[in-house]
């Protein structure tokens, strides 16, 4: 990886004379930002380094970067005045992946906005080849992280826009560079590095019961992997083997490439957050002290731990006034939030969740699930999530592992693929009878052709009603003067000036045009006595109406499209 004898150059901050070399920023799946897909704003290597003294930082940075296989042409050595002494966290990119041309190394999780702005100038400046950047910072390093990420994403978007459609210019141009040569198209690389690899692991109990049978699983970095299956399928045992609460009888578990048995068991456990059903809070400690447990054990000191705990309470959506309360004073949902905060307290890269939401009522559960997705979006943890609820698995999982009784893996796939191509009868059965309907959640309603013609305002004139009634729709949707739906009426029954809202047919629950899935649209049409669904915009005004037939056609169209590019679904292992 690193070629001996070619030490990376060091760039000083603000030295704009230096030409930044182009480098690889692979568009990857994820959020669409101004025409560029940016999932994790950094591709390749992320390194967070630290040292007390600036001189040391530079040396450490270089040695660390090279040690983890980054082969940067330039090491950007900056933000030294802000360097904080934090534990070093290193991440390696997927093996063999080319590193970025520039590696920015900093120990400061929130390295100053000023630096970012300088970088952006460089990015948006006249550099012929554009830009950077594989950068740095530990995921989830405190508050600045989100800001930093956002700024970087913006910088990248601007760069892409500047470059125009010619993405090939983003490929490394220098001779012998890794990756595609000039002119070739950049192929998206794997999005995630593998963080946890379960390698033919078996758990056999002394009485001969086999809980897990030669299970192999690659759990991708920074994503939610859900283990789902009926009771007794060994999903919890599998989870507990990751932090060695259960020792495997055979096989190995590699965490970031290292056998989990190589470090002391309690060190391993403290590097993984654990969330359990019913939260399992320490009832004799206040909420704040519950959350601060692991930081205290790691020797952070009382004040720092508590400050961190307060920060986390906010992050998981808990009122700060609860800090001094005891667990019994909280509702089940609040307790579970505390459980999540406690697991995140020491900023572990891995989060293990054992049926965390199954003991709370459905409304609270939905809230907690949404919260988890939001937290994951912000912090980018590697989450392993155990549940027996397939709906939860499909909703949360980036990857879903369906397990069957006896500890066998039945299927391991992204949820959309699981629903479209169940591997066998067991998986199909486990997914339930309505998997076709459920799969519709993955299709957007954006492509639906909405009719605006059969919509009349409550104060419409007779001509307008007559004109609207002449269309294909057997019913007309009546709206109030603001454009909000009131109900359906037959054209013949509607008399100008005398439309009574009370006599109209109900319109069911409208769906948000474009943002809701086809499932929501279909649900809406099925709920409506007229068989027509009402689409509304963000303000709740009617955007149009659509019939069951049209939705049905859209579904068929979506299926056809999916099977055409079915290979895309099967990228992941």
């Amino acid at each position: 990886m690193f070629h001996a004898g070619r030490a990376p150059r060091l760039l000083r901050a603000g030295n704009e004379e230096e030409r930044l070399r182009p480098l690889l920023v692979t568009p990857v799946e994820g959020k669409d930002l101004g025409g560029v897909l940016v999932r994790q704003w950094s591709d390749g290597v992320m390194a967070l380094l630290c040292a007390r003294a600036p001189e040391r930082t530079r040396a450490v940075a270089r040695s660390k970067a090279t040690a983890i296989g980054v082969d940067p042409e330039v090491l950007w050595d900056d933000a030294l005045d802000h360097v904080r002494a934090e534990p070093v966290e290193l991440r390696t990119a997927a093996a063999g992946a080319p590193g970025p041309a520039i590696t920015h190394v900093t120990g400061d999780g929130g390295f100053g906005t000023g630096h970012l702005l300088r970088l952006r100038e460089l990015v948006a400046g006249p550099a012929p080849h554009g830009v950077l950047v594989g950068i740095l910072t530990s995921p989830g390093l405190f508050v600045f992280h989100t800001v930093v990420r956002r700024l970087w994403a913006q910088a990248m978007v601007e760069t892409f826009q500047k470059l125009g459609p010619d993405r090939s210019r983003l490929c490394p141009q220098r001779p012998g560079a890794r990756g595609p040569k000039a002119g070739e198209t950049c192929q998206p690389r794997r999005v995630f590095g593998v963080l946890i690899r379960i390698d033919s692991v078996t758990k056999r109990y002394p009485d001969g019961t086999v809980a897990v049978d030669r299970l192999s699983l690659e759990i991708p970095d920074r994503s939610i992997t859900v283990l789902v299956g009926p009771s007794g399928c060994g999903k919890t045992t599998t989870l507990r083997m990751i932090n060695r609460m259960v020792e495997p009888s055979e096989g190995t578990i590699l965490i970031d490439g290292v056998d989990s048995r190589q470090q002391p068991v309690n060190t391993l456990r403290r590097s993984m957050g654990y969330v359990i059903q019913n939260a399992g809070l320490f009832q004799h400690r206040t909420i704040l002290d519950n959350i601060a447990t692991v930081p205290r054990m790691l020797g952070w000191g009382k004040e720092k731990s508590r400050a961190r705990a307060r920060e986390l309470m906010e992050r998981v959506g808990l009122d700060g006034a609860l800090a001094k309360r005891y667990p019994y004073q909280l509702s089940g949902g609040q307790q579970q939030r505390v459980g999540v905060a406690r697991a995140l307290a020491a900023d572990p890269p891995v989060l293990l969740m054992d049926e965390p939401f199954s003991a709370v009522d459905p409304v609270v559960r939905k809230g907690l699930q949404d919260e988890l997705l939001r937290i994951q979006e912000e912090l980018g943890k590697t989450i392993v999530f155990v549940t027996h609820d397939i709906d939860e698995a499909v909703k949360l999982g980036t990857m879903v592992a369906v397990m069957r009784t006896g500890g066998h893996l039945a299927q391991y796939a992204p949820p959309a693929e699981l629903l479209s191509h169940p591997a066998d009868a067991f998986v199909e059965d486990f997914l339930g009878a309505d998997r076709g309907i459920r799969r519709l959640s993955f299709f957007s309603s954006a492509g639906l052709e909405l009719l605006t013609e059969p919509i009349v305002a409550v104060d419409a004139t007779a001509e307008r009603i007559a004109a609207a009634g002449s269309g294909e729709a057997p019913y007309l949707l009546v709206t109030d003067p603001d454009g909000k739906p009131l109900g359906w009426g037959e054209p013949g029954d509607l008399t100008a000036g005398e439309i009574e809202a009370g006599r109209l047919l109900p319109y069911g629950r409208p769906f948000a045009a474009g943002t809701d899935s086809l499932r929501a649209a279909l649900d809406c049409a099925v709920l409506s006595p007229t068989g027509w669904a009402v689409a509304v915009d963000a303000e709740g005004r009617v955007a149009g109406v659509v019939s069951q037939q049209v939705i049905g056609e859209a579904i068929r169209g979506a299926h056809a499209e999916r099977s055409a590019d079915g290979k895309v679904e099967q990228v992941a292992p």
Partner: protein
Amino acid sequence: MSELFDMPSDLQNTYFGLVALHLREALLPVLAGLLLALPVAQLCVRVRWLYPPVLWVTTVLYAIPSLAFFVVLIDYTGLSELTVMIPLAVYSLVVLVPAIVDGVRSVPQETLAAATAMGFGPVRRYLQVQLPIAAPAIIAGLRVACVSSVSLVSVGMLIGNAGALGNLLNSGMIYHQPRLIWLSVVGTAVLAILVDAVLIGLRVLLTPWMPRGGTRENTRPLAVKEAAR
């Protein structure tokens, strides 16, 4: 007033001296019993099959009359307070061991699993999680043990001068002085009630995390807020 508390000279003590002596003879054995019961109980928690035989042994020990204990112990410890305190310590085990075992076992499984998963070693887990959560149960056991110990100390009268308020009772009977009998009986009862009250206070102080009638009220609006979210 001072005449009320006048003591016969053979007791060689003032009334409050006797009370202090009584208290010491009652509470030291319970403390010793607690120190003995903690490891025994922990052993019973860890080695499950040990619990029934241990319980059986403590019950049998409890069934031995104190007089029998004294007969045996006098050969070793003489006519001293220690001879009274040893049986009392042994008796306290019958309450304390089950109280601690039940208390430690009552710690919810998920709390223990969470502690283990957070990297608590066995010792840390016992001291920082199990024992604090078992505290209310242990204190409940202590209350019973202390009160029964306070009443049992009087038996020490049998071996001479080691019965504290029990000796006062004896003197009252010998000298036909109801005043002394009343002082002894009422004094013992008040002592037992006070010790119990102190332990209740201790529990309230140590376990602010226990649900209590009064504090429930403040939590209700929060729960409602949560539901409204």
